């Protein structure tokens, strides 16, 4: 008995030691997660029920912020419908284009490294710089793109200055930075077993059939991964639309009297993160900013849950 008892005590103390060790290794993040995630999230919920301008002490005002954002604030539904547009068009375009470029790069025999570098490079351009560059390139009056379109006798859209063309212009910018998806698709395509292609070829399958019945089934988890992460990135879409809108609007001067309210032209580039900024930091309406922040939270977490679903296995939580 005593031996057994001693054994289990030793086991228990080993367990405790291991528990402490785990805690020690995780401690930076446990602190970080509490202070920079849990606390502000709880605080955001609290402020969403408060009237607070950042100066006078907050006062409770029930659901006022919530009803204001959902039914009176004219920018909220515009931002929601822009987000829907971006999810439907921009994310789809990026996935198709990324897959296309990924397939192209796996087929290129001569100078593959050279092509890969050039295809990848724009992804690295800092968003502010890339967006300013596109605002210049797509400048309706004197930009090189419209210049070339004019020379070819094609219509010259207003791009970032035209509400119907501003989101397509942002999509072009997003396609330019396709490097991340290209690399992910390229790796997936190279993993497709060669024998399956050979077998399909023996069966007389043409290139479309090989793509449809060999390539797609093999890479479909990566396609889904690209779609879901694309949607999550769209929820965070901030720098490109705010810089593009501001540059095109011609509003200048940080704090020099002129204030750019995001969305130019005509709310067409508004996204939810920009609403949080404009409500919280331009209008000092902390409560309503927190309501929009919580909508953003719910949407991104819903898609994240999709990514982590056990069955889809897109991100493996277990090893």
């Amino acid at each position, binding site marked *: 008995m005593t031996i057994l008892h001693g054994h289990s005590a030793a086991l228990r103390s080993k367990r405790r030691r291991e528990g402490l060790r785990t805690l020690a290794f995780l401690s*930076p993040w446990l602190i970080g997660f509490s202070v920079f995630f849990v606390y502000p999230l709880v605080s955001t919920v609290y402020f969403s029920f408060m009237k607070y301008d950042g100066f006078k002490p907050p006062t409770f005002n029930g659901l006022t912020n919530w009803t204001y954002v959902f039914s009176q604030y004219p920018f909220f539904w515009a931002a929601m419908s822009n987000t829907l547009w971006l999810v439907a068009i921009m994310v789809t375009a990026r996935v198709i284009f990324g897959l296309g470029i990924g397939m192209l790069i*796996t087929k290129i025999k001569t100078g593959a490294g050279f092509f890969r570098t050039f295809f990848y490079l724009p992804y690295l351009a800092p968003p502010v710089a890339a967006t300013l560059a596109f605002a210049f390139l797509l400048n309706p009056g004197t930009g090189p793109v419209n210049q070339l379109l004019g020379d070819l006798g094609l219509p010259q859209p207003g791009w970032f200055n035209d509400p119907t063309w501003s989101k397509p212009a942002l999509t072009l910018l997003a396609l330019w930075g396709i490097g991340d998806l290209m690399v992910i698709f390229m790796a997936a395509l190279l993993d497709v077993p060669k024998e399956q292609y050979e077998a399909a070829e023996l069966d007389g399958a043409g290139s479309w059939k090989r793509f449809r019945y060999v390539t797609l089934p093999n890479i479909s988890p990566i396609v889904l991964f690209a779609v879901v992460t694309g949607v999550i990135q769209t929820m965070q879409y901030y720098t490109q639309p705010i810089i593009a809108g501001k540059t095109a609007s011609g509003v200048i001067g940080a704090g020099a009297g002129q204030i750019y309210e995001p969305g130019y032209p005509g709310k067409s580039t508004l996204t939810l993160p920009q609403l949080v900024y404009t409500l919280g930091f331009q209008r000092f309406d902390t409560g309503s900013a927190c309501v929009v922040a919580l909508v953003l939270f719910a949407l991104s977490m819903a898609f994240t849950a999709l990514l982590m679903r056990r069955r889809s296995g897109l991100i493996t939580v277990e090893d």
Partner: protein
Amino acid sequence: MTNAVTAPPVSPAAPGPARATGRSPASRAARRQELLHWIAVHSLGIAAALFFVMPFVFILLTSLMDDRQALTSALWPRSWNWDNYATVWQAPGFLTWWRNTLIYAGLGTLLTVVSSIPVAYALAKFRFRGRRIAMMLVISAMMLPPQVIIVPMYLFWAKQMHLTGTLWPLIIPMAFGDAFSIFLLRQFLLTVPNEYLDAAKVDGCGELRTLLRIVIPLAKPGIAAVALFQFFYCWNDYFGPQIYASDNPAAWTLSYGLESFKDNHHTNWNLTMAATLLVMAPVIAVFFFAQKAFIEGVTLTGVKG
């Protein structure tokens, strides 16, 4: 899992279409078809390369024009004004933005790597209750748009810590692990065989020594990828400096400063484009030196189970 971290193999440089031997008509037809295929693929490749490269070319050409020509729709500079770059370099604030960006990106990267490694190691190799949930929380934090928590965070740094007007509200949190870096490192550490760790323990190494002596040397490519991503994240960050540092030009970074540079030179597209290229250049230079680590890192984010 293992194949997710291998860099995409560089296709062997086959000089032109594969040489078919034999002279029968059938093989000649096959050879011709192969040649056509080669031409089609490479023409498409060149068209795509133009789409990716032309913006850079137009930016460069415009950055070399004189002030008046840059306002016209001309595509080719009538004179080559390389001194535009000197003008940008000497513009008020530009060097300060450089310094601030280097501090933010350098210190931020260092703190992120140091604080994220032990967390990623524990998540990859320790068995403990709540491991799965901890991993899910890391992924949730990784996917959280920064704007969700920005209002209380701003109030915290402004009213409790009195650190707004500096970049510290952006740097300090990086000492407490960054979710994306933890996730990426953990994915990488899963590929380190447990046998190495067990062998170290048999030799009497504690966890800390195992981490320092065995795991970190093995995980160097993963650590390099994480460091690069974090450096680029800080370099590119616009929202953070806009929130915390916009009131104090002495604390601006390149990404934020570039925007105000454009405001101050809104009729000088040439100077704005020169500044744009100067902000892009370091990132592109780093990429050329660390291409492999970077591409491995991107591949790692798209891992399959």
